[in-house]
């Protein structure tokens, strides 16, 4: 069973939990393992948090966009903001790099995404915003679907 869902929601911090639960709801019918589910929820939290606190710098009246697709057991997640953008993507993706050390950010968001997903692509342009595209083959998901 292939599927596709496209969303936008307000850039309030509560929507980190909302987005996480939406993704869990999207993949639950494919019956992943708890480990896969936890990994994916973690990754979505990181990307949505980044959009809200870095992209929109805490402005809570903006839109965060999310696209979910499932095709042949490959889950793709795109999370996009129309915020500040990233000056140097390569630098931003380094482990421990953060521009908000005062907020006790760990600088590990991108590292976690790269570790938990099969592929991560970051497209960003300053003052236009940032798009994160990630995908993962769900190994535990049966080819035959319910």
């Amino acid at each position: 069973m292939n599927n596709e869902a496209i969303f936008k929601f307000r850039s309030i911090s509560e929507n980190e939990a909302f987005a996480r639960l939406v993704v869990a709801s999207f993949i639950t019918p494919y019956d992943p393992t708890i480990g896969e589910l936890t990994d994916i929820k973690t990754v979505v939290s990181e990307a949505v948090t980044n959009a809200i606190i870095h992209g929109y710098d805490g402005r809570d009246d903006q839109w965060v966009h999310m696209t979910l697709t499932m095709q042949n057991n490959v889950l793709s997640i795109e999370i996009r903001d129309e915020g500040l953008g990233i000056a140097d993507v390569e630098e931003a993706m380094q482990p421990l790099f953060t521009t908000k050390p005062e907020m006790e950010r760990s600088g590990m968001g991108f590292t976690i995404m790269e570790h938990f997903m099969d592929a991560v692509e970051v497209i960003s342009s300053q003052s236009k915003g940032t798009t994160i595209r990630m995908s993962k083959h769900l190994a535990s998901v049966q080819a035959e679907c319910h």
Partner: protein
Amino acid sequence: IGEIQRFLRDDGTVKVSRSVKELAIKVRRAKEQLSSQYGRLPTLTEIAEELDVTVDDIVLSQDASRAPASIHETVYE
């Protein structure tokens, strides 16, 4: 990161469907118990606290089985 993943994953190879079914049973019991205790239906947070699981888990567990019978119950009760 491997550490983080292992920490987060604890019991990670169990299928979601199985854990959801198990939790659904516990939620039903907690719901009954808290309802008689409070004299009203409990909220999601109250059930999550009682069972020491996240609200996310409760939400997902409540959808494990689609029960048309319950629609009937709620409408006609």
